[in-house]
């Protein structure tokens, strides 16, 4: 099965071409075609995963490489696919969610004038995403990177008659391009120094020290810039909320489960090349993002906006997790998040489908009307809030643990901020998610007209919900995931880097005992990975060097994780409780809280001050523009983007003028000078004979005098 893996991406591509060409004329406008191809892809992914799972080897690697561009006699660029455990998992995630979204869309998009084109777009997206997952080299992940950008552009702007929609699409693409610019620079640095772009080749070269020191850090940050753009990390997260202009299933698929996670996947994919400095950089951006966006999410009333910001926030978790060394944690959260966030979005989709509104202020009490949606939604919410037993708890807890561990081992106490921030945000998450649930499903309906028309969705829509909800329990993931997806050893040549020594040692400690050779050979088509080889070479030394320290670290890690678990459970439940207190039981009237605490905030740090005003602004949605985090978000960051855009336009305007008047002017000036001198000379031709004779005599004389003396 795995030897046919390269076929997987082409299935959706096929359906894309067919649907774009003749989709309209096909029965049912070709939706079955797209659904079928993706389903086949799903089947194959399951097969692959099964093989990988049976091998059960942390270092499982399957390579399929052949030259793509040959200049002169040597191949300069290769193409191919790389399958290891992470890939297998990602394949599974992408195909599952994609299939379910296809299914869901059949109901959701029913009757849309561009129905077939919608499915075609879904297919091209699936193609790009699968390609991105399977890609074997930096260049090809970049290629599919752009392609998912394209499909996201197409799907966000699917209802392009709405100016807001087309705006959002444009914004998404351009903001991503900004990130890709960094990505490109990173790739260029790598190629210029290593001369290759395949992951393993690059890691090998880096191991040989071809690329090291600050340049390596820069390359890592450059690559991470791509992730910033794609995974909507601060400061480029502004496009994601706008992207909600697209159809809701699209939001579920692209802007919650898969594409936005691609950034995280990228970081995980190239994990070994990051230097500690780069990691710190990554971690900080993750932290800022998860906190910032969570605070914003607190006060949104648009159901999809809330979910969008929560997505940003969760992505922040993953990025931070990876940044602080929680490789498994981050990727696990990616996986679990894909399931429950997709479930949430689809649930919101079915709600919107029912009440034809996205404003939670107009909902309420829907649990009676649409029980299945409610239950599934609730499960997913519990998952995201990190309630034990649900998938979210499993992964988020790991991240918190990693953060705490990092903080404890790190030299500077400042690094505890990762744990604290994350923990606090976990509470916020629980709070705003349950606020959402309560306002939507509990209490009394606020808009009876809408309420009366609400109804449960058709099976094609709730079946996916059920499946995804089912996947939101932790038992699916616990155990094997931690074993199969393990942190690869860093190949960065750390000699040149002045990083806290502890970080480095921590990374060494994290290396698991390399699997025996036999197993590696057993794995079908497995090329012994250089990373692994490195492990052979360096790991014993590392262990010999720091065995006792390793055990010490293990102890700390254990302690950290247990602390993290309890605290996160506590905070999570606190958040949930508060949500009920405020929005359900009505013990505390939110408005009264507002009034009560407003003076207090004047004595507190700006942040809280902004949070509250932000609440106010969302309630009557206009005053938001000038103050608070939202102010920060909307004006400073987005403003920066717009500003740069405007700057670009302005500069280009100037340049245009420059071109018209100066450059071109010079030419025309030359011309006019020519004609001008012409008219001057022409005036010499007076028509007066004696002038002519005079010129004759004078000319002769002058020539003579010049020559004679």
């Amino acid at each position: 099965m795995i030897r046919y893996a390269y076929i997987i991406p082409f299935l959706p591509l096929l359906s894309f071409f067919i649907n774009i060409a003749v989709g309209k004329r096909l029965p049912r406008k070709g939706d079955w075609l797209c659904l079928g191809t993706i389903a086949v892809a799903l089947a194959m992914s399951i097969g692959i995963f099964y093989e990988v799972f049976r091998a059960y080897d942390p270092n499982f690697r399957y390579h399929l490489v052949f030259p793509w561009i040959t200049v002169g006699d040597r191949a300069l660029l290769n193409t191919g696919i790389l399958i290891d455990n992470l890939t297998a998992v990602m394949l599974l995630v992408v195909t599952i969610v994609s299939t379910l979204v296809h299914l869901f869309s059949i109901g959701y998009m029913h009757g849309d004038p561009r129905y077939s084109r919608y499915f075609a777009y879904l297919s091209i997206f699936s193609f790009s995403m699968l390609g991105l997952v399977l890609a074997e080299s930096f260049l090809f992940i970049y290629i599919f990177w752009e392609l998912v950008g394209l499909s996201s552009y197409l799907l966000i702007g699917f209802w392009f008659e709405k100016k807001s929609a087309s705006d959002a699409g444009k914004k998404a693409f351009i903001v991503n391009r900004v990130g890709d610019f960094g990505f490109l620079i990173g790739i260029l640095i790598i190629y210029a120094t290593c001369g290759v772009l395949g992951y393993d080749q690059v890691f090998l070269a880096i191991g040989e020290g071809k690329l090291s020191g600050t340049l390596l850090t820069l390359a890592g940050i450059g690559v991470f810039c791509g992730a910033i753009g794609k995974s909507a990390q601060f400061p480029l997260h502004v496009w994601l909320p706008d992207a909600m202009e697209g159809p809701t299933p699209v939001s579920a698929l692209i802007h919650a489960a898969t594409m936005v996670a691609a950034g995280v996947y990228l970081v995980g994919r190239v994990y070994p090349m990051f230097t500690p400095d780069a990691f710190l950089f990554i971690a900080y951006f993750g932290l800022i993002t998860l906190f910032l966006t969570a605070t914003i999410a607190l006060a949104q009333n648009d159901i999809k906006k809330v979910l969008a910001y929560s997505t940003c926030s969760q992505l922040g978790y993953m990025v931070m997790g990876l940044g602080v060394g929680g490789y498994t944690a981050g990727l696990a959260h990616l996986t679990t998040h894909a399931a429950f966030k997709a479930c949430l979005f689809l649930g919101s989709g079915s709600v919107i489908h029912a009440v034809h509104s996205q404003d939670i202020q107009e909902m309420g009490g829907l649990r009676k009307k649409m029980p299945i949606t409610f239950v599934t939604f609730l499960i997913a919410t519990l998952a995201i809030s990190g309630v034990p037993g649900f998938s979210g708890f499993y992964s988020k807890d790991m991240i918190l643990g990693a953060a705490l561990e990092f903080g404890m081992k790190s030299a500077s106490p400042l690094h505890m901020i990762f744990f604290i921030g994350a923990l606090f945000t976990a509470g916020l998450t629980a709070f705003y998610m349950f606020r959402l649930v309560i306002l939507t499903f509990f209490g009394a309906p606020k808009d009876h007209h809408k309420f009366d028309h609400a109804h449960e969705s058709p099976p094609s829509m709730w079946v996916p919900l059920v499946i995804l909800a089912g996947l939101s329990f932790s038992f699916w993931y616990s155990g094997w995931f931690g074993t199969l997806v393990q942190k690869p050893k860093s190949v960065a040549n750390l000699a040149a880097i002045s990083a806290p020594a502890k970080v480095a040692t921590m990374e060494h400690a994290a290396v698991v005992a390399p699997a025996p050779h036999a197993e590696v050979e057993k794995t079908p088509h497995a090329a012994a990975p250089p990373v692994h080889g490195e492990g052979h070479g360096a790991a014993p030394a590392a262990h010999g060097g720091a065995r006792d320290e390793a055990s010490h670290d293990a102890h700390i890690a254990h302690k950290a994780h247990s602390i993290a678990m309890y605290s996160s459970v506590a905070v999570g439940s606190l958040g949930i409780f508060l949500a009920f207190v405020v929005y359900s039981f009505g013990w505390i009237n939110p408005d009264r809280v507002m009034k009560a605490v407003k003076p207090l905030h004047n004595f507190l740090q700006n942040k809280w001050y902004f949070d509250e005003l932000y609440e106010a602004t969302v309630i009557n949605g206009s005053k938001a523009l000038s103050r608070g985090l939202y102010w920060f978000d909307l004006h400073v960051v987005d403003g920066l983007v717009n500003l740069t855009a405007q700057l670009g336009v302005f500069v280009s305007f100037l340049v245009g003028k420059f071109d018209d008047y100066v450059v071109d002017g010079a030419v025309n000036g030359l011309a006019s000078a020519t004609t001008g001198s012409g008219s001057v000379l022409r005036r010499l031709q007076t028509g007066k004979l004696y002038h002519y004779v005079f010129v004759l005599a004078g000319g002769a004389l002058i020539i003579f005098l010049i020559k004679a003396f």
Partner: protein
Amino acid sequence: MSGPADFIFYAAAAVTVGAAILVAILPNILYAAVALLFSFAGVAGLYVLLSADFLAATQILVYVGGIIVLLLFAVFLSNRISEAKITNPTHFRLPAAAICLVLFGVLSYAAVSTPYAVKKGVYLPTTADIGELLMTRYLLPFEVASVLLLAALIGAAFLSRPDRAASVKGEMEEGKR
């Protein structure tokens, strides 16, 4: 040779140049024409001194007898006799004068400074020689000159012949322009 010849030479030179200057500056064109006459005569005198008897004769005949008369005719024809003053205004004097003076300086300096291979001039009749040369060596120019004179003759005749049709046509076109 001495005294008298030199005297004659200087006299002729003075007449030639003086008259030429008068031609250049005299305000009245008739007077200028007369001055030109004297200048030509002076040149003829110089020819005599240079033992160019035939030339001297031709000079008198053609210039004095022909060209001057032509000029005078032209003067009269090209001025309305009715208005008595037949003036000869000038303009553009200073630059012209400047150029001419410089030119004169250059020419005479070149003349004086150059070591020409001067021989002692001898006085012999030239008519026979010229006649012979014109019939032998310079036959072709002689013949060509005849063609040239023919063309000039026809031209002069053509131009002086009134051409009413054409002139009418011309005016018509002037009108159009």
